[in-house]
């Protein structure tokens, strides 16, 4: 039982990181923009939030730092940093009509460089590798309040997480309502399916694409922030983990078949699949690596299944990955 609880809580915390990344990417892809820069954007979100919190905590002194203020600063910085990444991507792909795959990959390269550069510099400023820590801010992110005190395992399973874990679920629900139940959401889907038709219907394609990509980037960036502040407790490591998580987020978008509600449980399932090897007895160092393959194999299975069934509701947006130019029909 304790092992089951343990794998479930691991799945939730790990899954939340990729859920943010995937939710942002779902919004972006609904506008027809395939942003392969998600890992980079998560990097930007994480490092911007960390820089903001670090400057605040060292500015006022670690003893005087108010956790809530640090938290707000970190969130604002993370949103600003990751949305800036989204803006660069939007400008290049929407206004300058560059190839989305290539631009996204470049964004990932440059953002990883920026994040690791500043991560390294901050560590040096803080006195060496692994020395950087924004304890006060991180404590606000990891603050928990149980509503079912003393319920034992139930309590551990549902109320043992920082607020951003629940925020991810809220964002998923809001996104789902927005995309499926509002006029603006309908317009957005029209842009992603067939921009020429949307344009003819008087929808401002450029504005929808820009907004969806930038806001999507902001949500993805929160994933990086959650990872830095909650998952690794307000520190930094140049170990490329955020990048790996970012690619998992791209996979999760497919696994959830571009539906944000489905993204919630799929994210937790991904989290469980990623850590399953840890709970299976008798694995060698070698065979456990085969188990870590599971999320990717599952994603390919979903890809094949979806294209095999050809259900309209499960398909990617029809114009995904294509630039739109009005005069080119």
């Amino acid at each position, binding site marked *: 039982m304790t092992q089951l609880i343990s794998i479930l809580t691991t799945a939730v915390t790990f899954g939340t990181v990729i859920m943010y990344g995937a939710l942002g990417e779902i919004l972006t892809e609904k506008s027809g923009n*395939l942003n*392969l820069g998600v890992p980079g954007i998560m990097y930007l979100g994480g490092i911007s939030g960390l820089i903001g919190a670090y400057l605040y905590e060292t500015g006022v002194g670690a003893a005087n730092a108010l956790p809530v203020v640090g938290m707000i600063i970190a969130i604002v910085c993370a949103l600003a940093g990751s949305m800036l990444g989204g803006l*660069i991507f939007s400008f*290049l792909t929407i*206004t*300058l*009509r*560059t*190839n989305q*795959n*290539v*631009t996204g*990959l*470049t*964004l*990932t*390269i*440059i*953002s*990883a*460089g*920026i994040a*690791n*550069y500043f991560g*390294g*510099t901050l560590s040096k400023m803080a006195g060496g590798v692994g020395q950087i820590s924004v304890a006060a801010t991180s404590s606000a992110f990891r603050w928990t309040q149980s509503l079912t005190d003393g319920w034992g395992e139930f309590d551990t399973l549902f109320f043992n997480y920082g607020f951003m874990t629940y925020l991810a679920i809220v964002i998923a629900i809001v996104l789902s309502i927005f995309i499926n139940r509002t006029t603006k959401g309908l317009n957005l889907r029209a842009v992603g399916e067939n921009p020429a038709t949307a344009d003819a219907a008087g929808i401002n394609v450029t504005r929808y694409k820009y907004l969806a990509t930038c806001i999507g980037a902001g949500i993805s960036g929160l994933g990086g922030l959650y990872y830095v502040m909650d998952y690794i407790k307000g520190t930094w490591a*140049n170990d490329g983990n955020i990048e790996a998580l970012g*690619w998992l987020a*791209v*996979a999760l978008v*497919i696994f959830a078949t571009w539906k944000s509600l489905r993204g919630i449980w799929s994210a937790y399932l991904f989290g469980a699949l990623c850590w399953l090897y840890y709970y299976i007895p008798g694995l*060698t*160092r*070698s*065979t456990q*690596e*085969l188990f*870590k*393959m599971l999320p*990717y*194999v599952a*994603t*390919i299975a979903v*890809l*094949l299944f979806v*294209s*095999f069934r050809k259900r309209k509701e499960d398909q*990617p947006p029809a114009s*995904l*990955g294509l630039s739109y*130019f009005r*005069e*080119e029909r």
Partner: protein
Amino acid sequence: MKIDHKKEPIIRISKRVGIQFWKSWLIRLAAIALSLCVCALLIFALSGLNPIKVFGTMAKGVFGTQRKLMNWVRDTSVLLCIAVGLAPAFKMRFWNIGAEGQMLVGGIAAAACMIHLGNLGMPNVVLLLIMASASIIAGGVWGVIPAISKAYLNTNETLFTLMMNYIAMQFLLFFTPIWEHPAGSNKVGIINSVTKVGWLSEDQKLATPLIMLFIVLIVTVLMFAYLKYSKQGYEIAVVGESQRTAKYAAINVKNVVVRSMTISGAICGLAGFLSVAGADHTISEDTAGGRGFIAIIVAWLAKFNTFVMILIAALIVFLDKGAIALASEYSNYNLTNDVADIITGIILFFILGSEFFINYKIKFHLGKGKEEIA
């Protein structure tokens, strides 16, 4: 009818119909020059160093000694090989993001042959041929799986090939503990370090990089000819422009997709062989190290012209190596290896953006009647 000039948009964009060769290259050169200015500013802002001196340091760090120069040749060869491999896929508008994985399985195959066939006493040339074939087959298989599913189920190839990268990486991590040497290091270590069986050449400093360059240049020329002069190359071009036209012209699109992706994956697999047998003599997570992704950018920027790829690959490897040299030279000036990624990224963004000014014409409408054409 009176035209209201106030309501006209300030900027009007229209598609260019053909552009002179020199003009397009002038725009690209301007973009590179502009990006270098931005990089110079950035380096100055981060470290306070004189940017011109910094570029001098980069050049010295890459071309300064024969050894460094040959390392540059070696790494350019591998990157070029992957980019050339991607050319047929991209020309067909098949987004093969999986070069990383195809190269990695090629490397795994080569390493497996080196380790398990290395002590059978066969001549080195035979072993090398077996290794190369194994790599080519492995890469081809890795490339053809997403291609088949694209051809018959219309699966999104970008996402499928991306996932295949991670599966390849897990396979490598699966084999690493089995092949590890010395025990407990969790690294494969230098394979056949005493016998040097399965090495491209014993002379690491000069012969190996030149052999690698030679092989890759042959592949480059062959690919250029294949794409430009062969019937299959023509079919690839037609499928890339319009699948409907291809069907109308009785081209079997499914066959073309599967065939071209097999070739694409096979050449990426060959890059894995070169990397293992030539450059590293080991295999690790760094064997591909993101080069599969950078090669995509190389192939795209070169517009599938394999000769242009030589230039771009050489430039990117220069930037990467130069920035690393810079970081070690000025480590107390706040420069680290990560600056390499930033500089490469900035330059790539500018070259990417410059394509817009090559493909589109921009007209500025400034008030009544005044028109400026840029």
